[in-house]
């Protein structure tokens, strides 16, 4: 494997450390930031209240919803019941990191064909500032999609020829062509989608769901992340655990990231000579020391640590069964394709996402990188679609045939769109596209979302939204709504504010796309 080719796009930097690992920032400061609120809670409540609630809440993360009448209220005091009856129990988020071009996938723009190599009209751009990557270009020549579109399904949705498998399930999808965001570069844009905020440190969507609803299955993490092998080794997006962190929420709400090798969770297996009984005794010993410490100092972070030991112990049993695909029928491999047998591929991760959903994992996020086609887009996006199309469609088909699509919400999309004009030289067979935050396409399926519809429209250049804009906050509010959560009512007090995923700017549930 040769090393990734770094691009001038500022944050294409591979697997760099997160802000939390930045040198020069004292660990104590980071800790203080992270625990400021919980410490204040502790001081406010007093040691006794916390002590009483301590271990009782750790027996299972889904326990507090219905504690025995004689048991004390859980420490967090959080009501894990949804605000209203949910449509979705779980969600699978297929994150196309790097931002797939809407022109070659979902946003059909036939009017562009005669515009080949003509300059983008100034009236369309409206004076918008361009990124550093194309601002110095002498021209902004319009690049129509090299790939053909056709209508598919009863819904007649236009789908690119690069997505022949997804086209077959298009009647199960709700395609949204009017997403928009503020961020113009990958890291802030991906953070905006995963955490609702372009600054790191906020809880991710999955962490909020874990915090707000608890677990369905106590034996597995509530929130799981999988990063997929990269089909292209250029324009690599950094993915770090701040994208799936618990932010200021308790650490047990962060995702467990499944690795692609033989050991999906590092150090989960007992070393030679240590059996389950010894391991249990060790954890009991550590837990007892930790609870002593908790009773003395009352820091809730200690309880989070105990919970994590317990989760790791439970995962020693639950994970091997999860990752053993030998119980899959032959039809699975026909559906997902041969690559699904190779750990770490996108197809493998899609199948794993279905297995996680079956076992009650609330939120699985599959990342597929290298959609960032600044140059050689026609060739590279074909590789990207070829790598993912069959598995994506397989996941929808599979969930549907197993009766799981009704209560599993599936979301597909990147972090922003791409420009109508070519970045770099435009030829009849080659072009690139720069970042474009003003509009991009996504789709949702299942979980109570209306199937077989398209929502939102862009102009002839897919540059501006002309109908039904959907901000990321609206997407988040809608996802929460399907889980029975009012996004304005799920909050966490931190730094003196009632923090919530959708923040304080206007956001709304997109009721028009709900069944």
């Amino acid at each position, binding site marked *: 494997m040769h090393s990734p080719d770094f691009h001038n796009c500022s944050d294409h930097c591979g697997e760099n450390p997160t802000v939390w690992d930045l040198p020069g920032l004292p660990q104590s400061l980071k800790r203080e930031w992270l625990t400021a609120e919980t410490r204040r809670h502790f001081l406010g409540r007093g040691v006794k209240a916390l002590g009483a609630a301590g271990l009782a809440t750790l027996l*299972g993360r*889904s326990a507090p*919803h*219905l*504690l*025995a*009448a004689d*048991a004390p209220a859980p420490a967090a005091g959080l*009501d894990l*019941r*949804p*605000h*209203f*009856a*949910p449509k979705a129990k779980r969600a699978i988020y297929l994150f196309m990191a790097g931002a797939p071009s809407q022109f070659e996938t979902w946003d059909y723009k036939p009017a562009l064909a005669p515009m080949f190599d003509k300059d983008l009209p100034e009236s369309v751009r409206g004076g918008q500032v361009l990124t550093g990557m194309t601002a110095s270009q002498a021209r902004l020549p319009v690049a129509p999609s090299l790939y053909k579109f056709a209508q598919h399904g009863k819904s007649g949705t236009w789908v690119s020829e690069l997505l022949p498998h997804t086209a077959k399930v298009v009647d199960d999808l709700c395609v949204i062509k009017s997403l928009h965001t503020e961020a113009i570069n990958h890291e802030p844009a991906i953070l905006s989608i995963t955490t609702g905020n372009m600054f790191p440190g906020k809880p991710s969507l999955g962490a909020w769901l874990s915090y707000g609803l608890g*677990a*369905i*299955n*106590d*034996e597995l993490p509530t929130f799981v992340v999988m990063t997929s092998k990269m089909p292209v080794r250029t324009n690599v997006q950094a993915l770090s655990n701040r994208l799936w962190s618990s932010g200021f929420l308790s650490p047990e709400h962060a995702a467990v990231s499944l690795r692609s090798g033989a050991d999906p969770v590092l150090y989960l297996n007992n070393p030679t000579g240590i059996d389950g009984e010894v391991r249990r005794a060790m954890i009991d010993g550590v837990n007892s020391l930790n609870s002593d410490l908790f009773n003395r100092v009352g820091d809730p972070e200690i309880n989070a640590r105990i919970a994590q030991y317990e989760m790791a112990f439970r995962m020693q049993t639950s994970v091997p069964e999860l990752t053993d695909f030998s119980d899959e*029928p032959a039809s699975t491999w026909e559906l997902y394709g041969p690559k699904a047998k190779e750990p770490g591929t996108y197809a493998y991760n899609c199948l794993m996402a279905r297995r996680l959903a*079956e*076992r*009650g994992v609330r939120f699985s996020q599959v990342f597929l990188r290298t959609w960032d086609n600044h140059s050689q887009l026609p060739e590279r996006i074909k590789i990207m679609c070829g790598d993912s199309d069959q598995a994506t469609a397989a996941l929808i088909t599979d969930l549907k*045939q*197993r*009766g799981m699509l*009704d209560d599993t919400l599936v979301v597909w999309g990147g972090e922003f769109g791409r420009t109508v004009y070519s970045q770099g030289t435009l030829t009849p067979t080659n072009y690139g596209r720069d970042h474009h935050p003003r509009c991009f396409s996504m789709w949702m399926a299942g979980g109570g979302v209306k199937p077989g519809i398209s929502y939102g429209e862009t102009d002839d250049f897919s540059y501006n939204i002309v109908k039904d804009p959907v901000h990321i906050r609206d997407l988040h509010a809608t996802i929460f709504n399907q889980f*029975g959560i009012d996004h304005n009512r799920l909050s966490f007090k931190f730094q003196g504010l009632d923090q919530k995923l959708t923040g304080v700017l206007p956001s709304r549930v997109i009721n028009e796309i709900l069944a």
Partner: protein
Amino acid sequence: MKSWPNFLRCPAWSALCAFGALATFVRGEDSFYAQRVAPILDKNCVVCHGAKKQKGDLRLDSFAELVKGGKNGAVVKAGDPKDSELYVRVTLHPEDEDFMPADSKPPLKPAEVKVLELWIAAGADDRTPASAVKGAPALAAPKAPTPALTADWQPRRAEIAALEKTLGIRLVPRSRLGTDGLVLRTASAPGLCDDATLAKLAPVADLIVEAELARTKVTDAGLAALATFVELRTLDLTRTAVTSTGVAKLVTLKKLESLNLTATAVDEAGIAPLKSLPALKQTWLFGTKVGAAAP
């Protein structure tokens, strides 16, 4: 609307109206006051200015009381909202000590303030018909109450918690509404849930609207017990050892809407009796001997 007697339904009044003598004189239910103003006062003000409490010697629970005013005199000046205490007090800065509703109760919504303003400007009476006041914000359509799926589980909290503890299953409320029912959840330890478990859950069967039994040890014998869970809407039996014999017993589940039999040994004989179930919309049969998924 409680604040005004229903004159229009009074026979004597109807007779008068029929006579035509007072045809233009609208009182009661059709007036802007009764339709739009009184509900706002009832919701926001009457708790302190009503029959129980009369802060400032003011009552706002009927038009007659309202026009009497309080200890500082009249609260409305017809035609002049800006000089009417009723309007001024609700439009002050919320931190002003004279702001109403007092004591950090939620302020009136902008649409409610607008209704008061229009009403005072139009004469602050109880005769002007609702249709005669232009520009009033549209009334939100009354939200239909969520229909109760089951009895409220909350009074039986202790009984439910005890069953959870002894059986190793969970009974999860579908929402914060007690009458939305419970979900029988087994995902943490499907191996602990068997036919005996279902039999022991019979005392709370009337509260369970959804049973997640995928991968459990439930067999046909358990389905006999499950046949008494008549509130079930959703039943998932994926990868259980149930057969057609057991599934046929589910014909008592008249409210069942969704039945998942994925990867079970059922065949046509098992699902044929279910075709009579009135509410059943979807039956999932992937990986069974039936093949195609059809209800």
